[in-house]
């Protein structure tokens, strides 16, 4: 059995996954350098309409977080009827921006402000025809793994 996957929106992250390393697709103002996500045609700092695509860092630190313990109103939410609590947070991508995202770890006791987070994809819902709809999320990086990578 094969499962079809589709991104929740075009132009949000690199797709398909096999083609290139996973990155979020942002933009950068050609005039003042402001980084935006999602990609923005106009700059909210200098009002320029000249921007270029910028693939954002896939690793950052958790700036803050919360949990979602009740099913959000539908619409706009189109996750499964059987609701599983999830967490959301802002991840600071150094020198770029802070990004709001789902977190793969739903337990607030296992999340910590300042911990290292890595970009990933999660199938957050399934359509009637079996298609999985995929969105971006950040996953905590084990501290030990992180320390080893820093050391290497």
């Amino acid at each position, binding site marked *: 059995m094969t499962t079809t996957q589709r991104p*929740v*929106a075009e132009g*949000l992250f690199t797709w398909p996954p096999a083609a290139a390393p996973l990155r979020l697709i942002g933009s950068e103002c050609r005039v003042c350098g*402001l*980084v*935006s*996500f*999602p990609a923005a045609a106009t700059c*909210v*700092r200098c009002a320029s309409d000249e921007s270029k695509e910028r693939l954002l860092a896939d690793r950052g630190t958790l*700036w*803050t*977080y*919360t*949990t*979602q*313990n*009740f099913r*959000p*109103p*539908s*619409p*706009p*939410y*189109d*996750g499964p009827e059987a609701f599983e609590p*999830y*967490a*959301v*947070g*802002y991840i*600071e*991508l*150094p*020198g*770029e*921006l*802070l*990004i*709001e*995202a*789902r977190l793969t770890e739903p337990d*607030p006791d296992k999340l910590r*402000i300042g911990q290292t987070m890595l970009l990933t994809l999660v199938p*957050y819902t399934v359509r009637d025809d079996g298609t999985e*709809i995929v*969105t971006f999320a950040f996953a905590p990086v084990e501290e030990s793994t992180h320390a080893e990578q820093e050391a290497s």
Partner: protein
Amino acid sequence: MTEAVIIGVGLHPFGRFPGKPALDMGADAVRLALTDAGVNWPQIQGGYIGSYEVANPDAIVGRLGLTGVPLRGVFNGCATAGTAVALAARAIETGEHDLTIAIGLDKHPRGAFAADPSVAGIPSWYGQTGLFLTTHFFGMKINRYMHEHGISHETLARVASKNFRNAARNEKAWRRTPLSPEEILASPVLNYPLRQFMYCGPNEGAAAIVMCRADQAHKYTGKPVRVRSTALRSRRLGAFEVQSPSFPVGEPVDSPSVDASRAAYESAGIGPEDVDVAQLQDTDAGSEIIHMAENGLCKDGEQERLITEGATEIGGRLPVNTDGGLLGNGEPIGASGLRQIHEIVLQLRGAAGARQIPGTPRVGYTHLYGAPGASAVTILST
């Protein structure tokens, strides 16, 4: 420039009123405010009216009298009522009208607001994937704030408990059952660290404020309340605001509450140390804590001690949300800020009954904050 003073306030209870249209609640609030001011509807020369749910809130004239009065609809999210008051005051200050009214009314269904993200200029995927919830922002902002400034979960619960206790003394409040901090901490987490009884709910209600020129106040009342300043600010780039898929890195940028607060103090010539009673946007218990500092009423982190000591209680040094705030009253968006002003006016008149703060309060302060990052501050005095 002429100064605007408040001569009448009217409040329809906040809660749920099946079968009663928002316009009827608004008309009731207007009649109460007119009676309080001792004026008739045909004397009102102009006004501003705000609502989220009612498409044409100015249709209220059909219930009050078709006098031809210019009644302008205003909407500014949770800052709607602050905007209505500011404009009604401005109409007097500039000499356009001698007698004005600010009205707010709303009737929201149960549960969290379910809006279309595109209306807020936000992409669809943000709502589809479960990120488009204002409650996320409140959970994340207080979580970060607790981490940086040493605020405890118990302090969150104390704030909610205080506001329910105050609401119990307010016959027009919605949530009038006192809850202990322990009961609040035992309620389910909705958005960590915020629990069910730490959030306000959308509901129904209306309020109205009648104002006149200061030099004519003696015709109506012996206790006019002066509108010393009103200020409204929207978010600046870099501030951490509700409904932001991302925001820039770098030095922290002040919230619009800080900006509006500073502008209001400066324009009033009144400092935070002069404030005797305050009404702060307590969408949730964490917001009240953060807004104490953002409005200059304490330093970041001082809240832990102040709240433990009872400084924000009705008998404390700086009473906050004496009528129960949003936690006790719920939030009919268009009316909420006028409910705050209604309470400050009662307190400054010494007419707040069972919840009257002791002494002779001179200065009152109100503050609103809402999506997508707008704050309104009003400073009132005797």
